[in-house]
């Protein structure tokens, strides 16, 4: 049956309320089971040996002493993970990142792993592995890596996207370009131009739960993997591909997940755990330490961005351009390209050009971090916009409104926009009481807008109506922040039954069809669509069952308010049948009642946001305090408003940490100096005020309830909003993220000196 995903306006009964989440009690009592909370009988403990060098050729690895240590059951190196990638470059990058094959490419790169009867033995075994490294020169800075004298990470990489094709290898792996119009002509027309360069340092998603899994390979070729992940189906595919397992024979169960934000959409050590288990013939538990998480999972890019914007006296932008250099780690990917796509996405521009350059550096392999690549680009562009507004003498919000993208605008990354919410969020920001609140000494106010795509993808749900009329909803998107509550609301809404009668669970890979990951703000968006479809299918079944029970033709039965009704007058005054009543008779009307849905949720919209913040800076110490913060974002339709607010607040908090304090610090030796929460400083409770949120609802025309994905956008504006606020507070333009106390003091003293 085809499913109509078009938006239909309606009055909601369940959607939009704030009931308690079904997994709440387990999580407040410590009963919920996360990645490290699972054990299998006979399991071994794994530990990974990691390169202490930023760049080194691995000449040899001798594992004999480690393998013969009492209590060690398996030792693996790249030799135990044959290359089955068949020319797929991105899969090969994953393989090499899981276990270095020829070169260690960063401090922390895995080179060997052991499985032993306990952690003590495993750690002792690591010390017995002899690795002969030939240390090579390294480069860790995104700009230094582009210089001709920089050490080349990979002699087979020649910059793609450049004509004519270069003949010398480079650390710039790819050049991409977007835009339309004629920027030279546009800049020539401008009355005012702002041109500036910006830098942002590398940050980590900072989830509190380290990566953890238990892997079990059986001699018959089947395998089980318990793992904290954002995408158990994707992990199943990747692990099968890398280990040569049949997909149907690997059963992946996702534990509850203690944060992901994109960092758990990729495998890091799971294939290694499976390889160890296969070799040892026993289950293997592998938990990364916090230092390993920082050194060897997937932080985001460090960037270096040049922006130029020109406008007329009236504020109309005549041309905008940006060149974005993003670090990728050791393997080429598309991070700068994403930044180039999103840079000017908020604006309706006649002439725009963005160029993205992917830069290889001796740092861990970059992974997605909540609206990947967008926050840095937005920082640069929104900072320049702020300066432009000041130069023209125009209000910062008014400048945005003047140039804002609307339905029908051509986006800077190509397609024309449908209905979007950026205009309304700007208008709401202008009208918000925060904008007119008084500021005190040493305080500055900044605002910025941001945007992120969201997408649909492959989604399945099973909706089973139990004999007592309650509903079991099995979904395949991992619940990272409360989506089981939202999906239960959706099922309740569509079926017309109370929320309390729906129980949502996340299935494993053996018990449900393929589901794409929980990323791209798609969890609630796409699974709600599949849930509505499954519910409608179940309603069809129940309609026919009611017809049987009444012994009337099915065409004469319609569904309304959670009940089957007999249409017309000729069937007498039959009382409507509830789900419960129909379910009670299911055994005699055809068996269990269910609705399924396998669909591709496509045509997802985009979600725009505007943030306002007030920062107070102490000019003597350079320390800054967030005094007030407001998030205004379009959710299309907020299914469970408390969890939508939670996404807004959480994304803002991550952005605040990124803007003010978080960065990867490398030494001259190319080693990460701060792989821990003491010196990698994320926001703590006393750093932040209450974070005010305003949810706008401009329905997404491609979702039955108008839902838009919201999880990521909120991390996009904070870097710029804070940079704009601090710049006002100290009177100096801040161009280097994080805007930590030393940088503020340096900017203040430079300014005094000049």
């Amino acid at each position, binding site marked *: 049956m085809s499913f109509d995903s078009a938006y239909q306006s309606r009055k909601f009964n369940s959607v939009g309320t704030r009931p308690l989440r079904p997994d709440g009690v387990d999580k407040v009592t410590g009963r919920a089971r996360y990645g490290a909370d699972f054990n299998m009988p006979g399991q071994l403990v794994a530990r990974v040996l990691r390169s202490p060098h930023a760049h080194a050729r691995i000449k040899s690895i001798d594992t004999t002493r480690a393998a013969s240590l009492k209590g060690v059951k398996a030792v693996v190196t790249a030799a135990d993970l044959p290359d089955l990638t068949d020319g797929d470059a*991105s899969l090969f990058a994953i393989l090499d990142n899981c276990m270095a094959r020829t070169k260690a490419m960063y401090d922390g790169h895995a080179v060997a792993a052991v499985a032993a009867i306990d952690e003590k033995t495993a750690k002792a075994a690591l010390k017995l592995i002899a690795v002969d490294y030939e240390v090579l020169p390294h480069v860790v800075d995104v700009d230094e890596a582009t210089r001709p004298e920089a050490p080349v990470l990979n002699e087979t990489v020649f910059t*793609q*996207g450049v*004509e004519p094709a270069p003949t010398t290898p480079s650390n710039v792996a*790819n050049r*991409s*370009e*977007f835009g339309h119009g004629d920027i030279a002509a546009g800049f020539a027309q401008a009355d005012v131009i702002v041109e500036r360069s910006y830098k942002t340092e590398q940050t980590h*998603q900072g989830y509190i739960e380290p990566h953890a899994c238990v892997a079990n390979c059986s001699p018959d070729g089947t395998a089980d993997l318990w793992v904290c992940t954002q995408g158990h189906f994707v992990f199943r595919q990747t692990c099968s591909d890398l280990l040569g397992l049949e997909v149907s024979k690997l059963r992946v169960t996702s534990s509850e997940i203690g944060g992901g*934000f*994109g*960092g758990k*959409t990729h495998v890091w050590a799971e294939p290694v755990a499976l390889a160890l288990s296969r070799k040892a013939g026993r289950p293997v538990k592998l938990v990364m330490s916090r230092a390993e998480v920082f050194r060897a999972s997937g932080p985001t890019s460090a960037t270096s961005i040049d922006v130029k914007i020109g406008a007329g006296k009236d504020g109309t932008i005549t041309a905008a351009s940006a060149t974005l250099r993003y670090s990728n780690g050791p393997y080429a990917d*598309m991070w700068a*390209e*994403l930044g180039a*796509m999103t840079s000017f996405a908020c604006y309706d521009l006649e002439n725009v050009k963005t160029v993205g350059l992917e830069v290889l550096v001796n740092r861990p392999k970059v*992974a*997605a*971090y*909540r*609206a*990947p690549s967008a926050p840095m680009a937005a920082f640069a562009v929104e900072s320049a916009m702020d300066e432009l507004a000041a130069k023209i003498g125009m209000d910062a919000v008014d400048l945005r409104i003047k140039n804002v993208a609307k339905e029908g605008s051509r*986006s800077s*990354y*190509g*397609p*024309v*926009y*449908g209905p979007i919410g950026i205009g309304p969020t700007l208008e709401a920001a202008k009208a918000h009481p925060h904008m007119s609140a008084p500021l005190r000494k040493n305080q500055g106010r900044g605002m910025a807008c941001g945007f*992120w*795509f*969201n*997408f*649909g*993808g*492959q989604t399945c749900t099973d909706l089973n109506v139990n004999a007592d009329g309650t509903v079991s909803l099995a979904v395949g998107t991992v619940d990272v922040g409360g989506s089981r509550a939202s999906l239960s609301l959706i099922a309740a809404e569509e079926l017309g039954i109370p929320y309390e009668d729906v129980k949502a669970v996340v299935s494993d890979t053996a018990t449900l069809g393929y589901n794409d*990951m929980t*990323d*791209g*703000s*798609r969890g609630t968006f796409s699974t709600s669509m599949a849930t509505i479809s499954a519910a409608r299918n179940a309603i069809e079944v129940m309609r026919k069952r009611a017809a049987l029970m009444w012994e009337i033709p099915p065409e004469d039965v319609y569904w309304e308010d959670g009940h089957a009704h007999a249409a017309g007058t000729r069937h007498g005054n039959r009382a409507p049948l509830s789900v419960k009543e129909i379910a009670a008779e299911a055994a005699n009307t055809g068996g269990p009642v269910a609705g399924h849905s396998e669909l*591709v949720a*496509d*045509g*997802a919209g985009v979600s725009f946001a505007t943030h306002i913040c007030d920062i107070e800076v102490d000019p003597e110490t350079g320390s800054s305090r967030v005094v007030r913060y407001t998030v205004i974002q379009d959710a299309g339709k907020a299914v469970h408003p408390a969890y939508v607010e939670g996404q807004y607040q959480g994304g803002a908090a991550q952005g605040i940490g990124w803007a003010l304090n978080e960065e990867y610090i490398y030494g001259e030796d190319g080693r990460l100096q701060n792989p821990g929460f003491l010196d990698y400083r994320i926001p703590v409770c006393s750093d932040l005020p209450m974070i005010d949120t305003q949810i706008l609802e401009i329905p997404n025309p*491609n979702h039955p309830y108008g839902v838009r994905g919201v999880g*990521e956008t909120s991390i996009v504006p904070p870097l710029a909003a804070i940079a704009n606020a601090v710049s006002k507070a100290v009177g100096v333009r801040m161009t280097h993220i994080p805007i930590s106390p030393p940088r503020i003091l340096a900017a203040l003293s430079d300014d005094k000196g000049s």
Partner: protein
Amino acid sequence: MVDVTLWSGLRPLADHQEVVHVEARTIRELLRKLAERYPGLRDPIRGQVAVAVDGVIFRDDWSQELPEDAEVMLIRRIPGG
């Protein structure tokens, strides 16, 4: 008949053209014909491509119909976090 705009990374694989004319009524037909005409596009189409039809982005639904004179673009598939 639709005019398909290719994102910059694909153009070298399609004889450096930015816009290509293709006779196609669905996304599936469009992608098949593009891959037939330019074999270099086959791999990107398999793993990296999304199709924007009049501004709405489709990643997976290749049965989606292409209205006559629709604005069609091939853009990069975007990862999320």
